[in-house]
């Protein structure tokens, strides 16, 4: 989610002028939105009231023939509703009223006697985009910073000022579904092609062009024409009840399948669009206001907004402890050792964000695969910053080395020794291991204080998290440097302390282990996976094991078991999987069948039960999903609390961010710590105790949980 999309900005209570107007000699009034309290304009009650008053005054002013609305901020238009304000709304009715009120004002703008032209430069998101849609016309700059979109869905919300309906009106239902349900940003050219803006011009003349268009519309105002494609779609869907019902049934089924009902905003937006298609704008606006009210006070929106605040806070976090002060070294050049999925992904994220990368692997074929991987992700200009080799040449001036070779301590040691002969003493050396303690890797280093862990997640260019691992002796400057690089790569960075599995891998281990126990007891593979996907994980634990590699997981399991003992011990039967050469998807042998069935259709490999020596229970459908969910989720959550207790984590906030963005903990649940807060530590403790009784000491509650329950505390204030 872009920092700009919705800016949490504390608003002071003092009344402030956020709108100013100026009437030009040619009769075009320029209305400038400029909230002096914030870096970006956001939609606040003040802005709403003052905008309405200013428009009223201009409408009444006989010298004014047309109006242009622009932003007084340098490179942004209006980035959406003020989230602090939205988060503070306590009653659905209040939100509903706000939506209805804004909707009315925007409708008046759209239908007013004098043309209003939006002059859009920089992001116009959420309410900002809705504002421009409510104008008679919009002129956008073709600057790279200019994007338009309705990202509300990412916060569990929906557009509240009829913007979604206006998109449907102009660009059709399909476009509205796409824009609303994905929350994606549109480039100005795309918005122009869709009819969502009317002109795209160079940034330097965007105001002039908006003024000229406003003056022209004042003389000759014609209704906007719909494109033939949109008219055709309207004919098929809006005017045809049968087609419409079929279409929305399919859309709904698809949305339900993807969200499993956990993200109601998606379905509520579909409601609005169906109401629009069936009964028109006014009815849709009514539905929108009601649904918006419900969403604003929903648990889902609250969890997603809290996560958004946490991410925003992390963007300003140096990753250092309060007692530490260190400036990051400048990083321009990065050496990436290993051109596999991780190495190439790290290289791609780096060159995409302006860093120069030299990537090494052992032979041409491996280097070639890495180059291909990067090439498919980045554009020409970014690719120009990447070079590759099979030796350590071209790395002398590297400011940061990220080692992403095979997870083998000896190999990592030899790689470290080699690269340290080449690079300068202040070069930060990072290992992208997912499990080997960094202190062990740093043991081979001639400068162990410059060594740290940068644990990326696959696929690197898509996964938003970077787990940065510091040892007892890591130089704060090295940490600050790596944090800065991670942020530059567009990652949300959490800094954790060294230890087996760090944080994310460590909490994943008992979770996957519990799935293994369930399977070993005879729970069918699909029942386990289905239950956890239903709970909100993107993929089930056994499917994930296939993806990660059963051999890799076993290797990591060995590391965590050695460090944490019995609770990480896999069921005895699992050794049989390795003996059966089941490595997961990479060798086509795992819990599922690969390459034989139809695409997108996952079928369990039934022979796995025989290998494990179990008979799957017949009553698959009736097997209690709740039991599976409770066991797997609590295994993970309990371990997360141990990490907090042992100060692996700096804060519950980092723990929630790490679990959600690193390993797919359901975002609408807010993360393990937020989950405990919501359920209540005492209740979570009760459930843990009951599991402990039934299943043994691997469910022994974390001391921190016991403590929190005893003292009636919460992780978040």
């Amino acid at each position, binding site marked *: 989610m872009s920092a700009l999309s919705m800016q949490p900005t504390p608003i002071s209570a003092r009344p402030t002028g956020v709108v100013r107007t100026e009437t030009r000699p040619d009769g075009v009034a320029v209305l400038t939105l400029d909230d002096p309290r914030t870096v970006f304009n956001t939609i606040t009650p003040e802005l709403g009231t003052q905008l309405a008053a200013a428009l009223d005054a201009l409408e009444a002013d006989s010298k004014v023939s047309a109006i242009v609305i622009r932003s007084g901020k340098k490179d942004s238009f209006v980035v959406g509703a003020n989230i602090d304000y939205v988060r503070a709304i306590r009653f659905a009715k209040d939100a509903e009223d706000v939506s209805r009120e804004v909707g009315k004002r925007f409708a008046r703008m759209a239908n007013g006697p004098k043309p209003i032209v939006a002059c859009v430069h920089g992001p116009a998101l959420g309410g900002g985009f809705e504002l421009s849609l409510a104008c008679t016309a919009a002129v956008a700059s073709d600057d790279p910073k200019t994007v338009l979109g309705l990202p509300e869905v990412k916060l569990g919300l929906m557009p509240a000022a009829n913007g979604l309906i206006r998109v449907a009106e102009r660009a059709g239902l399909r476009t509205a579904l796409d824009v609303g349900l994905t929350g994606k940003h549109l480039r100005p050219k795309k918005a122009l092609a869709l009819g969502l803006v009317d002109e795209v011009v160079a940034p330097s003349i965007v105001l002039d062009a908006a003024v000229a268009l406003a003056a022209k519309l004042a003389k000759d105002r014609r209704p906007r024409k719909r494109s033939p494609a949109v008219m055709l779609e309207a004919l098929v869907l809006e005017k045809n009840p049968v087609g419409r019902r079929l279409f929305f049934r399919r859309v709904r089924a698809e949305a339900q399948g993807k969200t499993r009902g956990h993200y109601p905003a998606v379905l509520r937006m579909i409601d609005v669009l169906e109401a629009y298609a069936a009964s028109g704008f006014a009815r849709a606006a009514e539905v929108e206001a009601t649904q918006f009210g419900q969403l604003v006070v929903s648990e889902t929106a609250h969890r997603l907004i809290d996560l958004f605040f946490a991410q925003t806070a992390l963007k300003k976090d140096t990753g250092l402890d309060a007692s530490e002060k260190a400036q990051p070294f400048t990083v321009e050049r990065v050496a990436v050792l290993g051109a596999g999925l991780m190495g190439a992904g790290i290289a791609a994220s780096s060159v995409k964000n302006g860093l*120069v990368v*030299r990537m090494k692997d052992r032979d*041409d*074929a491996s*280097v*070639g*695969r890495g*180059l*291909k991987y990067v*090439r498919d992700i980045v554009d*020409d200009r970014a690719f*120009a*910053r990447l*070079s*590759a*080799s*099979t030796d350590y*040449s*071209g790395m*002398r*001036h590297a400011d940061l080395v990220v080692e992403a070779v095979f997870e083998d301590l000896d190999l990592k040691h030899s790689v470290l020794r080699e690269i340290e002969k080449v690079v300068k003493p202040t070069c930060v050396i990072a290992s992208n291991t997912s499990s080997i303690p960094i202190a062990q890797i740093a043991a081979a280093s001639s400068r162990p204080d410059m060594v740290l862990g940068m644990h990326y997640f696959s696929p690197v260019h898509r996964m938003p998290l970077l787990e940065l691992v510091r040892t007892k002796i890591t130089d704060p400057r090295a940490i600050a440097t790596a944090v800065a690089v991670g942020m530059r790569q567009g990652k949300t960075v959490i800094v954790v302390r060294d230890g087996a599995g760090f944080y994310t891998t460590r909490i994943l281990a008992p979770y996957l282990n519990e799935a293994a126990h369930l399977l070993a007891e005879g729970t069918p593979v699909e029942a386990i996976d289905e239950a956890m996907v239903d709970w909100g994980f993107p993929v089930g634990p056994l499917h994930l094991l296939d993806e990660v590699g059963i051999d890799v997981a076993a290797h990591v399991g060995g590391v965590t078991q050695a460090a944490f003992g019995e609770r990480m011990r896999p069921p005895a039967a699992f050794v049989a999987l390795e003996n059966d050469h089941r490595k997961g998807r990479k060798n086509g042998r795992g819990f599922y069948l690969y390459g034989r069935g139809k695409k997108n259709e996952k079928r369990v490999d039934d022979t796995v039960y025989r290998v494990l020596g179990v008979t799957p229970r017949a009553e698959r459908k009736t097997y209690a999903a709740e039991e599976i969910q409770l066991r797997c989720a609590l295994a993970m959550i309990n371990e997360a609390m141990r990490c907090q207790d042992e100060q692996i984590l700096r804060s519950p906030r980092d723990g929630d961010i790490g679990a959600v963005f690193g390993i797919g903990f359901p975002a609408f649940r807010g993360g393990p710590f937020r989950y405990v807060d919501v359920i209540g530590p005492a209740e979570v403790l009760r459930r843990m105790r009951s599991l402990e009784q039934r299943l043994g000491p691997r469910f022994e509650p974390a001391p921190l949980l016991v403590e929190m329950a005893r003292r009636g505390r919460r992780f978040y204030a």
Partner: protein
Amino acid sequence: MKSERVAIVGGLRTPFAKQGTAYKHLSALDLGRIVVKELLARTELDPREIGLVVYGQAVPNPTAPNIAREIVLGTGMPKSVEAYSVVRACATSFQATTSAAEAMLAGQHDVAVVGGADSASDVPITVSKKLASALVEAQKARSLADKLRAFSHLSPRDLVPVPPALREPSTGLTMGEHAERMAKDAGVSREEQDRVAHRSHTRAAAAWQRGIFADEVMHVMPPPSFDRPIAEDNVVRHDSKLDSYAKLSPAFDRAHGSVTAGNSSALTDGASALLLMTESKAKALGYTPLGFLRSWAYAALDPDDGLLMGPAYSTPIALDRAGLRLSDMDVVDMHEAFAAQVICNKKALSSRRFAEEKLNRTTGPIGEIEDERFNVHGGSIALGHPFAATGARMIHTVLREVKRRGGKYGLATACAAGGLGAAIVVEVAS
């Protein structure tokens, strides 16, 4: 005051590949970017040190007329690096090298990247003159009818695309036909030519086997699939047998000719680059130069009178400017466009009559070039000849070979279309 010398700090080339093979999806610009980016990485140069890029293609591509500037913009160099492109046919990267050197000696720059690239796989195919003028007319026309009218005079034949002419505009003959004529005029036998070709392949193959080119040639993983790495020139015959050359039929004169595909250089794709610095700058940045440019010369002759004799004309001038004799050269590398051209040029250099009649020199022949110092690791016939890339390849190879032998001087010389010749004398660091 000790005058500044221009140092060659590093060099690199791609493997050279036959037209339509490893690089069939790449343009000359792609190849140029690949080699320059890798040269910068290997030399550990901070790109901010670079002031100038001079680069060239013998067959310029209309999509990137100033290839040098596109290389700057596509290799992560600062955008403030200025760049221009040069064309001197097969001597293009000689020209790139000496143009940059001249700017450096004039005190305008102290670090420059030079070189050249050509792709015989990506030649600019143009349209006929009639179609071209119709297209221009149509572009200016306002109405659809006018636009259509512009094409009304065209016949189907005018729609056939036109490949670039490899014919000499002044003589109307192709290069091969010129080589054929030289061979006949000088009485060069088919066997002599085939021996030169066989020798070129044998030496190139040996050089590859001995790892001579390891530091001169990079590996390329050609996009878009990146899965067919090319590590060596694919023109070189590793099992060259003299007899096999005799089996080929003449390519340009079926009845009486002796120039064949086997004793000519092939159409090739590839790129090369050199990193140049002023001696003082190299020292300041801590580089040990491979060597220095000692002198250079270009010469021109009547295309009708031995079009490819450029080396015999330019070499004596370069040697004079260096204050050296041909016998001082530890290694001589002469571009092998055709075996016949190599033989004719060598003969001319050792001929008193040529010196007197063509060069107006009364001091006797320029000199003999013994086999053991001539095209030591093969030449363009075996290695391939991506026109603009050849010069920088030769300069780099000569310099390293002089050094390897513990020698002092080397000569690289080439003929170029239009009756031009180029020669560069290099010296190793001392």
